[in-house]
């Protein structure tokens, strides 16, 4: 039987001196789009960052398997090279590092890992131009420093653009919708939707149901206080929108 792309079992995580995740179970198969919703402080961004390998967290129990391999044993760059991508909630500004130079280095690190030939500047630019069009990104953005002086919307679009270039097997979008106006949200959602494929799994982390009007998930999970308290179809998001998180915190206590 095919391994799920991501299999999280009983994951406990500590960070900043307290337990943030308290036993997460999650399985995402190829071609599936899952959404994790939850109130502020529920631990949803922590889950995204732990999966990407952020060093500030400590996994105290449980396991994570990615394509059947022990994900927690991999350093962040190996995860990336194996096809895991996280779009940051707060993309980091890196003055002095050219966006195109950075992305070419990243793409070639992945290609090298897969035993593929590295792209030269010409082929890279051809690929990049096509993807930029898809996300309505201005070419001048490529010649600027990574995220430096970008507006909030430009930063988020740049993340999805990177995703479109790196073509991950598992894409984790950490609150990609926050801070976006409706036009920017539509562009980002369009970019994500064109990336949906039977080969690719996605995990959308979001506070608001709004994003899910544009990217329709297969499964919705609700995270409160470090645990998934409910999972369901896309209707669950609408129910949440109507009743608020308080309703589920109550359910969680049952």
């Amino acid at each position, binding site marked *: 039987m095919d391994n799920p792309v991501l299999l999280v079992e009983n994951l406990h995580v500590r960070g900043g001196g307290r337990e943030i995740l308290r036993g997460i179970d999650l399985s995402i198969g190829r071609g599936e789009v899952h959404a994790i919703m939850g109130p502020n402080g529920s631990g949803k961004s922590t889950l995204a960052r732990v999966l*990407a*390998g*952020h*060093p500030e967290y400590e996994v105290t129990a449980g396991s994570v398997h990615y394509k059947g391999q022990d994900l927690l044993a991999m*350093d*962040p*760059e190996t*995860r*990336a*090279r194996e096809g895991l*991508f*996280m779009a*940051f909630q707060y*993309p*980091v500004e*890196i*003055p*002095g*590092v050219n966006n195109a130079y*950075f*992305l070419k*280095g*990243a*793409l070639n*690190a*992945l290609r090298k*890992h897969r035993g593929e030939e590295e792209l030269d500047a010409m082929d890279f630019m051809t690929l990049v131009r096509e993807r930029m069009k898809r996300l309505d990104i201005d070419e001048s953005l490529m010649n600027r*420093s990574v995220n430096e002086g970008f507006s909030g919307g430009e930063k988020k679009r740049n993340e999805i653009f*990177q995703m479109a270039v*790196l073509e991950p097997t598992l894409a984790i979008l950490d609150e990609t919708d926050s801070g976006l106006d409706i036009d920017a949200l539509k562009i980002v959602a369009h970019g994500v939707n064109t990336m949906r494929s039977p080969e690719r799994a996605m995990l959308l982390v979001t506070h608001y149901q709004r994003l899910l009007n544009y990217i329709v998930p297969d499964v919705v999970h609700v995270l409160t206080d470090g645990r998934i308290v409910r999972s369901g179809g896309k209707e669950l998001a609408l129910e949440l929108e109507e009743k608020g998180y308080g309703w589920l915190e109550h359910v969680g206590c049952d």
Partner: protein
Amino acid sequence: MLAVIDSYLAEAERIGAERRRDPAWVARIRREGLERFHALGFPTTRDEEWRFTSVAPIAEGRFALAEDGALSARRDDLAPFEWRGDLAATLVFVNGRYAEAISNAGRLPRGVRVESLAAALPRPTTELEAHLNRVAIGDRQAFTALNAAFLVDGAFVHVPASTIVEAPIHLLFLSTGEAQPTMAHPRVLVVLDTNSQATIVETYGGGAGAHGYFTNAVTEVVTGENAILNHYKVQRENPSAFHVGAMNLRAAKNAHVACHSISLGGALVRNDVMAVLDGEGAGCTLNGLYLSDGTRLVDNHTTIDHAQPHCGSREIYKGILAGRARAVFNGKIVVRPDAQKTDAKQTNKALLLSEEAQIHTKPQLEIFANDVKCTHGAAIGQMDDEAIFYLRSRGLSEHEARHVLIRAFAGDVLNQMPLEPLRLCIDAELVRRLPEWRA
């Protein structure tokens, strides 16, 4: 210590005897330099200007003037310090002495002089006599006085009025290994007349076998009105070397001088830049990058003297420190009472790659005019962990991520250098030195 100074006196006397054909005024510069040095002695950490920099390893060292090194250097030794691209001329100095056989006088525009001081001194031009040892003042600077005491060789560059030297002039000072630690006191005088332009690169480097040698360089720059000079100092001494260098410049009305200072090598390094903006509308750019690791010490002192109105200065110095390295940055800006409408901006930043590395940084503004714009900012920081994680999350190794961030930090300074082939050469040298720099 006294015995050491006596040994300098003996060496200086030997020089005087050797240079009988120099005019009397040159002999006087040497004699006065020696007297001044004798009176001042080496600076100590009690001296405010040397508070964090002990020159004891130099003061207690025994350095001999090298034998004429021209024979001991070959063209191959120069390769690491050269870059691709056109050059107007390359003058090579080995252990402080001009090496004609491996130099290239080049094709220069009419009237431009680029020659060794050793050759120029016995029959000096008006410009040489008018300016030599006039911009660099050794009254209170022991090392400058010491350099004057040993004034025998170096370079003289003169660009006459309305003349543009398009390609850079390269002055390469190379130290080679000798049985005993050697010293060199090269002097450079650059005279740019009205409306002239030039690019000059001074490189200081050590051969593979050189060890524990001492370079004490003094550069003097005088410009006429509207002159433009791009000056680069690339310090790539051997890691065991002692390097003291003073850049003294005086810019006339509407002239602009850019001083790029790249300091990569040396065990104990002191760079002084003293710029006097001496005519209305004059400007200067001080653009510095220094690296230090291991137990090396790099000290940069800069002074910009706004002596006239409407002058502008831009200064950015950045340092990268690893291991137990120490660094000093002292940036003085003086605005004289008449220097209204001065516009001065100073920035200095240091990136510390280890817990043990230390930097002493001090902006020093002395403003005596009231209608001026002077800003300064200092920042000392460590590597941004979140940025490293961001780069790693895109597939770069931790090592690569650190390199990318260090190069980006240095890029602010390097990208201000218009001479692209040299910039690429320095960037490559930076990368070559980085592997050793794991925090």
